[in-house]
Each structure stands twice: as structure tokens, then as C-alpha cells.
């Protein structure tokens, strides 16, 4: 069995509220699997069940072939977990944080010291090793949280929004390190609401919306299937809109969506349509390639879910 994480009809209820509503997915050995969803979609809840800190309401969930209900300690010993909120220990220095964390895994002190040096170096934190946690910037805290998750040399990493709130430099550094870890054979499951992050890092993604998986596939495949080849964004007032919509409705092979003051025209692959030939006019017209964000917004709707 090469499924490292396997969920079948997984459900999580808090009282009468269903946060995760029957999701099924599997993560294969060595891949990077992404959970894409808006705020409140149920990403963290799913992660917390995988990391055995939140009990499953119903359904099946196995990690590395072990049942989360029966073997929480063994599963937790094998996972590297990066929680959504940094929960570093502010009473301890950077290095002590890692040392104490390693002890929770019952690892040999010498081995822990070696791993601390390695992961501090990997995340360029060696110079900060004696600093207090409160003195670190949020980017450094995030890096340290990821470094901490490597202390038990996990083969499976679970990362909940690894780069939310980071500046572009820090994000790229984290991406680069995650790609490096993946190249070392680590299986990864991550959540994000950054489409570029998912496109950049993930082999496969699922889009989760209000506790359900609505679609899954490779980022490129999803863009092709739901976003098409090209997108035209036409910004225009109400006056001219009627005429344009009529013309677009007459054209074949287009998908049209109106959102507030913008009309989106999706040109599907293989239609042989040249969008510039449509001679679309508005106060501003943008021709661009379709991306994952188009897929996401089309499938989950453009309104706020929370």
C-alpha cells in the first residue's frame, strides 16, 4: 500500500455543527498534497484529526497504515507537524525549544543535538539559537516552527498554512526548504489559501469548501479543466453591458461570469477561439492566462463564506 494518509468518508462534528462532512482522499508516498480552501472550510479540523489531537466523529482515517483511533502515539512519533498558529515555548530560548521538543519524542540527547544543528542550519537560524522567542520576527518564528517539526526526522510532514503572514522573501525561503525536503523523500500534506503556493509546491490538490471536497487533481489539470486556456477580464459600466452579454452569449465555447463590475470570459482549451478577435471593449480589458485562483473562485463562489 503506497497510500501514506488515507481518509474515507471522514466526518467531524462539533456539537451539531459539521465542520468536515464526509471527505475521502489519499496521499501517496513522496508526494506533496495540498488542501485548498477558504477560511472556515475545514482544513485545520482535518489536519487535527490526522495529527491525532482531535477525535474523529466517524469515517476511516489511517496514517502510514495505522488507525488514528488506535495508535495515536505511534502516528505522532512519525509525523512532523507545523500548526497554523506558532506555539513555540516563550519560556525557553530558540535552541532549548528544539531540545525540549526532541525530548517529547524520547530521542537520544546526542541525536537531538545533531538534529538541532542540522535544522537550525537548514532554516538559517544558527545565529539566533540563544535568542528569546519573543525577540524573533514572525518570519523567524515560522521558520523555527518548521525547523522544530524536523526534530524527529519525520517521513511525513503535515503543515497548516506554512507561509500565511510571511513577507515574499520569507515565503520563498520556506518554499525552497519544503521543496528540498520533498526531494529527500518526505511526504507532505499542506493547507493553504494561496493559489500560487499550491501551484508551486503541490503535485495534487483538493479544493475543500464548507467541509466537503468539491474537486481534486493536479494544479495544471484543474486549471485546464475549469479555468480554460485564457481569461479576459472586462471592466465596464452597466450601460454597455447588455450589448456585450448578448454578443458573448451568441459566441460558442466561452464561459461567461459576471461579478460586480467585471465580466470574466473563460476561453476553453481547444476551442480555437482567438479572444482578441472578439473585439471586446470596456473601460479596461485584461487578457491573461487562466490560473488556479480562477478555478477556485469559480468553484467556491465569489462571496465570502464567513
Amino acid at each position, binding site marked *: 500500500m503506497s497510500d501514506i494518509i488515507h481518509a474515507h468518508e471522514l466526518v467531524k462534528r462539533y456539537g451539531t455543527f459539521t465542520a468536515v462532512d464526509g471527505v475521502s482522499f489519499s496521499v501517496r508516498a513522496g508526494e506533496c498534497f495540498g488542501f485548498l480552501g477558504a477560511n472556515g472550510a475545514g482544513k485545520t479540523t482535518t489536519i487535527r484529526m490526522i495529527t491525532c489531537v482531535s477525535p474523529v466523529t466517524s469515517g476511516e482515517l489511517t496514517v502510514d497504515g495505522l488507525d488514528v483511533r488506535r495508535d495515536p502515539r505511534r502516528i505522532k*512519533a512519525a509525523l512532523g507537524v507545523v500548526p497554523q498558529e506558532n506555539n513555540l515555548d516563550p519560556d525557553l530560548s530558540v535552541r532549548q525549544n528544539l531540545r525540549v521538543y526532541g*525530548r517529547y519524542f524520547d530521542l537520544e540527547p546526542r541525536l537531538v543535538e545533531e538534529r538541532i544543528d542540522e535544522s537550525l542550519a537548514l532554516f538559517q537560524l544558527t545565529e539566533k539559537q540563544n535568542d528569546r522567542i519573543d525577540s524573533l520576527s514572525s518570519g523567524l518564528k515560522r521558520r523555527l516552527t518548521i525547523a522544530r517539526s524536523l526534530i*524527529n526526522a519525520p517521513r511525513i510532514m503535515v503543515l497548516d498554512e506554512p507561509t500565511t503572514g510571511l513577507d515574499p522573501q520569507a515565503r520563498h525561503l520556506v518554499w525552497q526548504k519544503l521543496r528540498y525536503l520533498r526531494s529527500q523523500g518526505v511526504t507532505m500534506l499542506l493547507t493553504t489559501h494561496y493559489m500560487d503556493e499550491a501551484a508551486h509546491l503541490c503535485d495534487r490538490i483538493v479544493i475543500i469548501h464548507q467541509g466537503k471536497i468539491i474537486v481534486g487533481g493536479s494544479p495544471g489539470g484543474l486549471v485546464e479543466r475549469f479555468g480554460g486556456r485564457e481569461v479576459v477580464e472586462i471592466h465596464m459600466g452597466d450601460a454597455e453591458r447588455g450589448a456585450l452579454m448578448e454578443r458573448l452569449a451568441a459566441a460558442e465555447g466561452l464561459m461567461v461570469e459576471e461579478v460586480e463590475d467585471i465580466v470574466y470570459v473563460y476561453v476553453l482549451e481547444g476551442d480555437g477561439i482567438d479572444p482578441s478577435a472578439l473585439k471586446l471593449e470596456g473601460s479596461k480589458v485584461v487578457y491573461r492566462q487562466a490560473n488556479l485562483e480562477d478555478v477556485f473562485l469559480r468553484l467556491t463562489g465569489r462571496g465570502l463564506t464567513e
Partner: protein
Amino acid sequence: MIDIALRCLTIRRPDVSLRALRVWQRNRDVYLRLWKSEVIWPVVDPLITLLALGIGLGGLVELGDNREYVDFIAPGLLAIWPMWAAAGECGWGSFFRMENHRTFEAIVATPVSIEDVITGEILWGATRALISATYILVIIAAFGTVDSPLAVLILPLAVLPGIMFASIALCYTSIARSISSLNYFFAVFITPQFWLGGVFFPLDRLPEWAQRAAWFIPVTHVVNIYRGLTSGDVEWSHLGDIAWMLVVTAIFYTIAVLSMRRRLVQ
């Protein structure tokens, strides 16, 4: 629906292991990092009490049997300050770690279980009580209030009331909504024991019903034993005090584990 209700009712067996010591070690490391700033209070407070009440007020107090008042209150201090130490650690200390620092959340993502965390916290609270008892034993011995070498037995014994008060405090912490609501616990539960646990006056001065009520005050039993050990008058009834503490400790430890789990496992 019934199915869900039933599942909520089934009680999962507490999963305690030796990994609780890892949590204890974490707290110890933090203490060792900060101990210079913390070392002074466990010494100063009892010293002031001993001087003000024992020597100052004590000059005005007749106990009847030729005993000095300072000798009378010394073993009581050995009971109440460690009680404060354990309750403070598992009250304010644990609440801070749980809510403000999210330390528990970080720990349970490792192979340490929530029951291990709770047990480790209680053991650490008991350790703080032991540290405090050691300081105070040295101080009261220096004041010449210890008459029997049996008093050294107080040190290993101090772990039991330490666990007891730590467990009681953690029970309250598990239902506290904010750090300020912990003040109620100390005002309603800890401070009255300070005054009514037989530390500052013999309980037989109180009316019959109040003496009976004092039996339910945990610190009374600790004071009884310590008074016996410092004076050398050890009685069989002290075994009863120990049994009382064992039972109460077992009850509150169990409640602490179940109630903390209810709060933290969602």
C-alpha cells in the same frame, strides 16, 4: 443521534505513561532558567510570617503548656507555604501555559498524551511544594523550632500534599475561563485554609461543629502530621491523616484528568 450520544458517554481509558516526566523536565528547565528571580520569595514570605507572628505576636500569646508560640506555628508554615507553591504552579502557571502560551497544544502534537501533560504538571506542582518545604524546614530549624530528627521525614512526605494541592488546583484551572477567575479559587479555597487549617491556633478552641468541619479542610491533616514529626509526638491517627490525603488525591487527580481532557480534546 442515539449513536452519537452513546459514543460521547463511553469513557476513554486515561492514557498515562512515563512521558509525563518529559513535561516535568520542561517545567524544570524553565525553572532553572529563571530560578534566580524566583528563589527569593519562598524564603522571604515565611521568614516574615515567622518574625511577625511567631516572635512579634507570639510574645503576647500564652499556650498553656510552656510551649513557645513560634514553635506552634512553625510546622503549620511548613504545610501552608508549599500548599501555595503547588496551587500557584497548577493554577496560574498551568493556566498560562495552557491558554496564553499554548504549550499544551504544542506538546500533544508529539507522542506525549494529554494525560501525560496533566500528570507532568501535577508532578511539577508537587516538586515546587517540595522545594518550598525544604527552604522552610531549614529556616524553622534555624529558629530552633524543630525538636525531633523525625522532621526530616517531612521532605519525602511533602510530595503527597504537593500532589494533592496541585491536583485540586488543576481541577479548578480546567474550568477557569480567564486568569482572573482563578483569583476566586485562591480567595475561596486556598486563603481560608491558611487561616482555618489549625496553623495559627489549636482547633480545639473552636466550637464543636467547626472542629468537625475542619476535618474536611485538607491542610489540617498536613499540619497534624508535621506537628507530630517536628515535635516527635507521632501518633497512630497520623496514618489516618495520610489515608485521608491519599483518597482525596486520587479523587482530585481523576477529576483533573477527565475535566482537562474535556476542555482540551475537541
